[in-house]
């Protein structure tokens, strides 16, 4: 049954394709504006016509000449009646009873795509996306880190997946405290609470509403798409002890983090692409207390934490996307 269904789909596709070929001017994606010039190649095409396409008067004199034994033109058989043709003369019971006007007016609920055959189909494919992320909105501490995203495309435009970013890989610490902090502390005598990240992980949904293609240097074509992504996960971080480093040592804590972002993917081929993404991670942070409790209370951990603002960490993520499996078959012919 499934095979039969596919055959039916294939036949429908052929019919739709034939219809499209018959009316190419009205079904083009980029309808020429008023007064658009015909392609310059049109005249050239006329000159390049194949001999069999040429009109009779264009034929060479020797080939146009009728053979001496050819019957006169008036002896040619009459054109068959419209509608039935020869079958109606031979067997009237087989003559098709079709109302062509009604058939022409009938609406066909064919599913037509504005762009036929997407260059890189995503449906039922897994995207593996290693990336490098860096901070866009924290001038005090940058948080560069490697990360990995894995998405499964349920439809061609919708995916579900996970991503994780590791800010302290293999025991190192990629968080970078800017020299600007020390300068500001020294000049204005004000301590700015700083935070360093440990890791983040999220479950995400991706929607791909935009796709297109570019001609590069008028020479080659590459395809791209743009997507929105959002999800929910955890982000683990801890304050860097700035106000009272003698007493305070902070441990990492996980925070519930929402994320939303935009991305652009440029395809090198049908399974390999470059990805650029901007993602906002929003979470309730816990900052170091800017005041120090007097006396022995300074060593009391409950006095170490201060404000709990909502932090928006804007992160750029640049990486590669590998789609698996590498190849697929289109459902409809081109």
């Amino acid at each position, binding site marked *: 049954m499934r095979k039969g269904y596919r055959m039916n789909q294939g036949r429908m596709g052929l019919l739709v394709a034939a219809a499209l070929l018959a009316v190419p001017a009205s079904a083009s994606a980029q309808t020429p*504006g008023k007064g658009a010039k015909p392609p310059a190649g049109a005249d050239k095409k006329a000159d390049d016509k194949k001999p069999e396409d040429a009109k009779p008067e264009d034929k060479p004199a020797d080939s146009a000449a009728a053979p001496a034994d050819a019957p006169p033109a008036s002896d040619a058989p009459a054109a068959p009646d419209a509608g039935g043709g020869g079958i109606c003369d031979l067997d009237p019971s087989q003559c098709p009873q079709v109302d062509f006007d009604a058939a022409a007016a009938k609406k066909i609920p064919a599913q037509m795509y504005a762009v036929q055959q997407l260059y890189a189909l995503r449906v039922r494919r897994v995207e593996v996306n290693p990336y490098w992320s860096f901070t866009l909105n924290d001038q005090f501490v940058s948080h560069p880190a490697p990360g990995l995203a894995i998405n499964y495309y349920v439809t061609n435009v919708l995916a579900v997946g996970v991503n994780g970013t590791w800010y302290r890989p293999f025991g190192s610490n990629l968080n970078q405290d800017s020299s600007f902090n020390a300068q500001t502390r020294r000049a204005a005598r004000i301590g700015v609470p700083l935070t360093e990240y440990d890791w983040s992980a999220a479950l995400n949904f991706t929607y791909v509403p935009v796709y297109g293609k570019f001609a590069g240097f008028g020479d080659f074509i590459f395809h791209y798409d743009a997507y929105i992504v959002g999800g929910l996960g955890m982000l683990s971080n801890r304050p860097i002890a700035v106000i009272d480093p003698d007493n305070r040592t902070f441990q990492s804590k996980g925070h519930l983090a929402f994320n939303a972002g935009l991305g652009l993917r440029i395809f090198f081929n049908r399974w390999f692409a470059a990805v650029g993404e901007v993602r906002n991670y929003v979470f309730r942070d816990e900052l170091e207390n800017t005041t120090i409790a007097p006396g022995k209370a300074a060593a009391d951990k409950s006095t170490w934490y201060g404000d709990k603002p909502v932090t928006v960490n804007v992160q750029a993520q640049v990486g590669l996307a590998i789609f698996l499996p590498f190849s697929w078959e289109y459902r409809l012919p081109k």
Partner: protein
Amino acid sequence: MMRRILTVVLPTAALLGVSSQASAQENQLTGPLAGAPAVRGLRLHRKQRFEIAPAISFTLLDEFQRHILLGGRLTYNVTDWLGLGVWGAFGAVKQTTGLSDRIQEANDQRFKQSDPNFSTGQASTGRTLVRANVGKDFKQQLGAINWIFAPQITAVPFRGKLSLFQKIFVDTDAYFFAGPAFVNLREREDCGGSTGVDCSARDGSGPDPGNVRPAATKGTQSRMAIAPTFGLGLNFYTGQWTSIGFEWRALLYSWNTGGFDTAGGGEGGRFPDAKIDKSDREFKFNQMITLSFGMQFPRTIKQSD
């Protein structure tokens, strides 16, 4: 550990190794399309047209003060892939960051005589140390962009279209630009040393024997910085002569954004020297994003073969 690295590196290298054989759209054609151009009947949105684009720009990663700049771009596109033009903008809106507000609050508190800690020796020392760097109205001493003027060359290597929800189709191009920028800045004025200006001058006149008055609001001066600028952008053509643009721009120059004495003294000049001068300027990778609405003239559009 080594094995783990290899398991990542080797597949990646293998993938990269085979990727060169499968090009974007199999343009190594041998049939009747061999040698044909990649695109026929391309709408030439740029070729031999002027573009006038009012624009609004937003600075990024500002430490003390954000800017919203209003301006525009004027470009003559010699070909569809090369344009010459200028971009200019002035700092219409200046908004302090949370850090500036915090410094202002802390400074106000520092000189509030009703504060219970005001009379302590530590508070008095703090007031003395901070006067050279923070004036009564901190916002007034912050570095600011007055205006920018940048002649620039625009290259448009990528031209295409995008589909939005399979309903809306928009011609699009991606471009790069570069050129020299003339940036008119306002910064804290030079003081200390041979300038004759006291960096720690008190608010009001006369002596301050009780060490209770804040520093006067710092004076500022303007100067011109000449800086390289470059960036990239996308133009979405909404019609034959209109477009919406989005671009990112970098401007590389040194300036003193906070009006602080941060350098010029000590080893390597990395410590304060009780002067405000050009040694206190710090090199910055200044960035901004711009939204524009472009209008192309003449309004009629040409089309390639």
